[in-house]
């Protein structure tokens, strides 16, 4: 049963990533692109979690945790740069 659920989950997340990629290329504003990148990071974290379940290994979660932190810092850095023209004032 979990195998089928994982198949559905991988398919849904792949479709979600394709949609995010469409928004990333389409724009129209720079804020849309930041939002699309942030959503892509969240979806990739979901992918890693599902891959951890599929491989029955808990070692992938460090990667997921690292990606969560780096994604947050990256988004805030983009936004901060656009708001103030500088990242660390």
């Amino acid at each position, binding site marked *: 049963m979990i195998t089928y659920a994982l198949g559905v989950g991988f398919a*849904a997340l792949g479709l979600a*990533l394709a949609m995010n990629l469409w928004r990333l290329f389409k724009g129209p504003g720079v804020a849309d692109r930041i939002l699309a990148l942030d959503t892509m990071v*969240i979806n990739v974290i979901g992918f890693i*979690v599902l891959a951890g379940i599929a491989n029955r290994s808990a070692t992938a979660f460090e990667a997921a945790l690292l990606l969560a932190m780096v994604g*947050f810092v990256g988004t805030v850095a983009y936004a901060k740069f656009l708001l103030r023209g500088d990242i660390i004032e």
Partner: protein
Amino acid sequence: MSGVGTWAEALVSGLIVTGAAFALIGSWGLVRLPSLMERLHGPTKATTLGLGAMLVGSVGYFQFVQGQWTTHELLISLFLFVTAPITANMIAKVHLLRLRLGEVSEPIGPAGLPPPPPTTTMPATDWATHEAPQHGTPGDLAGD
């Protein structure tokens, strides 16, 4: 497979499918909705909730099926639930700033147009996004 195992597998499968569906709905909202302030709702709420459901499903899988207690998922979900509002706030601030500068044009949302930029005769009426910190406030590093 014992009764507990079947029950746990059904629970984990349901959580995985629910989480993936919410992530898909959030991304669909990101594509479908007309303006950025509305598009912000999809990823910040639906996708974060979907990822939370998937992480709880992962905890359940390793606990009930593998018999191994993991706390990494709880750490990830805690971190995501703390940071999602902050990133949404920052992106909304970027959008407001660019609307004010006239660099983007969008359909007017239900809340109407954002307030105009402050002038010498009329000070800013809303939250500040791009002005320098006022003198004496905590962000005023030059005054120290």
